[in-house]
């Protein structure tokens, strides 16, 4: 294992927010500003300690990095096993950054039960980071479930009108999915025992496992239910608009930017490499659900009168795009899918922040309540414009990089799929520009909007990193894409046996005579399927 830090970096990143949460327990609930300072401090600290993931990551190695490994529950083979690759390091950085932004955005928005609020947010951070670093399936599952609780309370306590319904819906939806997922995990666990005699939840070992097709098929379905609910894919998406609409701003931001990525992360980390043949078999199904999600989400977004719900449905559409790129099972598509996960975090996170800014001023999300805000809040309108363009994939901004890679990646697999998915670029422009027109353009008809203050310094601080990221990824995505090479190689090598990373091609070492048919479904005969373990994932 290369790039092993001399100290437990990942644990530090993971537990810094938790330390903050524990510290908050001992602060009087009446000293609210102290609580705010501590929470913000630990969020910033959490981001700072995660920065080595950017600077110290070895982009060339295929090994897991910053690995920590120790026994956890030896009797069942569960370990405290954490480590990252380029993909998860980017998602962790996204999580720690969005944590800072979400916590900073709550300063004046949350005035009740301040202490509990920040404790829940910090615990949520730990849960999310833990899920991204876990290389032990059981550990992952624990963090996966841990995340649910604080989010449930964030929506249920600090949410708006219909918060209890939304919170319970969010909780139950995810729980149902994850219970089925747990069955899938156990199936893999026992199958591994059957062929090797060892009990382990070690994901790196599962990545080398060759399961029979029938078992893969069922396990894929089980994982799919868990992850698809989280993404969310059509038709499991209906919890999302409710949860977003009723969640407090910071909750929506975290939910959109990071929590949804749990689903896509799960697919790329678990479903694809552990169940490659089943993945190939399910491609048409997942692709069509994704395409439906893209178009359906966009059209339903167009019909919304609630600003936040519109952004929520746009998330459904965008996450459909992410899933589409992933199930192209081409390196360009998978890379695009991962980049688009980051992009979605940046732009949709920013869009929810933007709704939060006016919601805090006006306490309404009705689009018709606004109009002409360009006049009274020009800076706000400018930020909103950039983020709108980012969301609809304008070149030079981040969204374009993801979309073009995804669509090019799916195009070489199936042109009809690409054509259907590309309608999203028209519909996306339609609903976002219409939203922009209804809120920002026109005259200030509503007297309540006449005196709205523009962005203050704290709000600028929340938007600035996102604006920088949007332009950076848009103009020079290379540092991000370079980090993904080996992660994508790992997945591709599993789902496509003829796959060869570019450096191997570049050296002219081996040139396959026929282009690999990505979509050919190899149905394992029983004999080959019993071959215990394929030597070395890659």
């Amino acid at each position: 294992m290369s790039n092993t830090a001399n100290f437990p970096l990942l644990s530090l990143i993971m537990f810094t927010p938790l330390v903050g949460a524990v510290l908050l327990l001992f602060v009087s609930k009446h000293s609210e500003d102290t609580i705010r300072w501590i929470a913000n401090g630990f969020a910033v600290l959490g981001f700072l300690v995660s920065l080595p993931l950017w600077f110290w990551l070895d982009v060339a190695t295929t090994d897991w990095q910053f690995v920590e490994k120790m026994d956890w529950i030896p009797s069942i083979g569960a370990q405290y096993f954490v480590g990252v690759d380029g993909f998860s390091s980017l998602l962790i950085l996204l999580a720690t950054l969005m944590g800072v932004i979400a916590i900073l955005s709550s300063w004046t928005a949350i005035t009740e039960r301040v202490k509990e609020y920040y404790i829940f947010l910090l615990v949520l951070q730990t849960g999310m980071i833990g899920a991204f670093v876990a290389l032990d399936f059981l550990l992952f599952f624990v963090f996966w479930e841990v995340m649910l609780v604080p989010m449930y309370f964030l929506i249920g306590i600090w949410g708006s009108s219909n918060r209890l319904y939304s919170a319970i819906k969010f909780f139950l939806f995810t729980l149902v999915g994850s219970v089925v997922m747990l069955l899938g995990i156990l199936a893999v666990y026992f199958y591994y025992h059957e062929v090797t005699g060892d009990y382990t939840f070690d994901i790196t070992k599962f990545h080398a496992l060759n399961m029979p097709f029938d078992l893969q098929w069922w396990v894929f379905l089980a994982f799919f239910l868990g992850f698809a609910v989280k993404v969310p894919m059509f038709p499991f998406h209906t919890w999302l608009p409710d949860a977003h609409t009723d969640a407090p701003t910071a909750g929506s931001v975290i939910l959109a930017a990071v929590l949804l990525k749990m689903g896509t992360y799960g697919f790329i980390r678990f479903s694809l490499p552990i169940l490659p043949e089943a993945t190939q078999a399910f491609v048409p199904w997942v692709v069509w659900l994704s395409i439906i999600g893209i178009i359906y989400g966009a059209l339903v977004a167009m019909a919304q009168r609630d600003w936040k719900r519109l952004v929520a449905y746009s998330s459904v559409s965008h996450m459909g795009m992410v899933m589409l790129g992933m199930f192209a099972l081409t390196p360009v598509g998978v890379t695009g899918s991962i980049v688009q996960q980051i992009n979605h975090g940046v732009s949709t996170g920013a869009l929810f922040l933007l709704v939060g800014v006016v919601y805090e001023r006006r306490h309404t999300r009705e689009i018709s309540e606004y109009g002409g805000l360009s006049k009274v809040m020009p800076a706000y309108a400018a930020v909103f414009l950039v983020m709108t363009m980012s969301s609809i994939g304008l070149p030079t901004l981040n969204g374009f990089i993801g979309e073009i890679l995804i669509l090019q990646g799916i195009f070489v697999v199936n042109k009809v799929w690409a054509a259907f998915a590309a309608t999203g670029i028209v519909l996306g422009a339609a609903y976002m520009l219409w939203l922009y027109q209804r809120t920002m353009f026109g005259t200030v008809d509503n007297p309540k909007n006449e005196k709205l203050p523009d962005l203050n310094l704290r709000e600028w601080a929340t938007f600035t990193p996102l604006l920088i990221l949007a332009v950076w990824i848009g103009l020079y995505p290379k540092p991000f894409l370079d980090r993904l090479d080996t992660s994508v190689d790992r997945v591709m090598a599993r789902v496509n046996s003829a796959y060869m990373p570019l450096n191997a091609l570049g050296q002219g070492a081996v040139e396959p005579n026929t282009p690999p048919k990505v979509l050919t479904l190899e149905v394992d005969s029983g004999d080959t399927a019993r071959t215990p373990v394929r030597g070395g994932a890659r």
Partner: protein
Amino acid sequence: MDFIWLIPLLPGVGAAINGLLGIRYFSKVLAARIACATMGAALLLSLVAFLELLGLEHREHVVTLAHWIPPIPLETASGIGAFEVPWAFRLDPLSGMMILIVTGIGFLIHLYSTAYMDHEPRGGYVRFFCYLNLFCFFMLTLVLGSTFLVMFVGWEGVGLCSYLLIGFWYHKQSASDAGKKAFIVNRIGDFGFVLGVFLVFYTFGTVDFREVAEAASHMPVEVAGFGVVSAICLLLFVGAVGKSAQIPLYVWLPDAMEGPTPVSALIHAATMVTAGVYMVGRNAVLFEHAPMVMTVVATVGALTALMAATIGLVQTDIKKVLAYSTVSQLGYMFLATGVGAFAAGAFHLMTHAFFKALLFLGSGSVIHAMDEEQDMKKMGGLKYYMGTTFITMFIGAIAIAGVPPFSGFFSKDEILYRTFLSNKWLWGLAVVTAGMTAFYMFRLIFMTFFGDYRGPGWKHEEHGGHAEEHGHTWHGPHESPRLMTVPLMVLAVGAFAAGFVGVPAALGGGNAIEHFLEPSFVATSASHAGEAEHAVAHLSHGAELALMAFSVLVGLAGISLAYHLYVRRRGQADRLAANWSVAHRVLLNKYYVDEAYGATAIDGTMASARGLWTVDRRVVDGAVNGAGWLTRALSWVSHVLDKYVVDGLVNLVGWICQEGSYLFRRVQTGLIQNYAVATLFGVFAFITMYLVARYVGV
């Protein structure tokens, strides 16, 4: 020449400075100076680059700055390739000509705007220049981009700027509607364009223009069947149709006139809308391998030219006339490219940039003079008030009408000639269009500048009600300030003289521009022997001159008809309109195409949006809530069962025990005789049972 990337970047920097700092802090003068200075510097660099280009043997120079998208393996039609896009810029004759047009006309329009937009409040004024600079940044990126995707950066970027500038006066519903419409209609075109680019990569394994052209030149010309190159070209052409406002996606351009007039001149006449023509020309090698698509291009071009010209005949809004004229002239350019005369198309693009920018800026000067009035019915006689504007616009009108030796004559005639050689039907359409063009353009000149003044009255030194609305006193029509008229004069010189670079051989010229542009339209690897293939049929000089004379006569006929109807016998036009009222109304309402789109595409989309929203709530979420309800119902049933049945049974047992014990407690009297009687009864009972059992025989 490695500095060519600075040419787009300079206005980009100007936009960034004005956008980040200027809108909040700068004065009008400072912002305008920054904008004009960056454009001026870009113009100078373009001139230097162009001169250096003339000295290059291969007439091509590519500058690669950095990786944009680093190589990622991806399968293509011919094995595994690498998808990669560098930030690369290409200077060749075609892009060299384009950067001169964009920076030259762009600079003049920046100057003009400093005066035209002067009545805007400071913030709006700076914002305007920020957008205008940003537009030039993207437009220059578009023309200098060396790959499809870098071009697409500019392609989408100019769309954004167009959106922002059309909707510049965003408080007006019509303006923000028009901006949105422009963006979305363009996105429909982009849908085709990106699919075309994907197919380009899949087919050729690269998105670099030069590499694609080289690869395509080795492929067979798809004469017989509709092959992959034809598919690529058709998809790319969909993008061009959106950007360059051709049938059926032209509807956004007339609405785009909601933007300030300098914007109409720069974006919606001289530069952005020609991007589609430029893109087709940039891929000339591809299109030449797709003759079927070429026919489509030519036909769409000719039909658009005619259709837009007919609408232009009856419009009375001065900018709308010019807008339809632009659509029509763009149709001409596509007609040229469609018949394989790429150089002629680019030539017309260049002359059109001069005279149409001139006409738009002139109309802006008129609108300025008339205090924002755009209806030509309320103008008239303005030549007495604004001589410079009149003369320059007149030159522009002559140029577009195709009167020799003005620029439009040479470029238009080249197109007509090449069309005649290729397809007589399309030539017929184009000639009719030429006559209409001359007519509606001089109708505009005559309605605006000739006859009696028909506008509102004005009072000197008094605050009339009309003036107060605009916050300043209007002193009647007046010539515009020097900053506006000087660009007009420069452009008028261009509109007159720009054609001399393309004098055809029949008139003793060398058609210099065609030879200059030639390297951009052929593959480098194509040998000179191969050029014979491309050589087109020729007419004798005499026949060519006869054709030329004919089209000039048609143009003159259009002009004299306009003179007849609008100067000599005023009122004749209204009578004509009344006699042909149905046709007139159809034209006035632009063939009701907007209404048709509204009723089908837009209403259809909105209806399905609302329908799906209902489905989402009732069906998809309904299933979820149904499951929740079912769970609750089941739990209620369980509750009832539990309370009354399960627990009921338990309680029943208890109750029975209790009641039973009450009952049997009575028996426990403690009196021995009672027990004895009970025992006796018991003995009798047993004996009876025994006897009965025996009797029955069990």
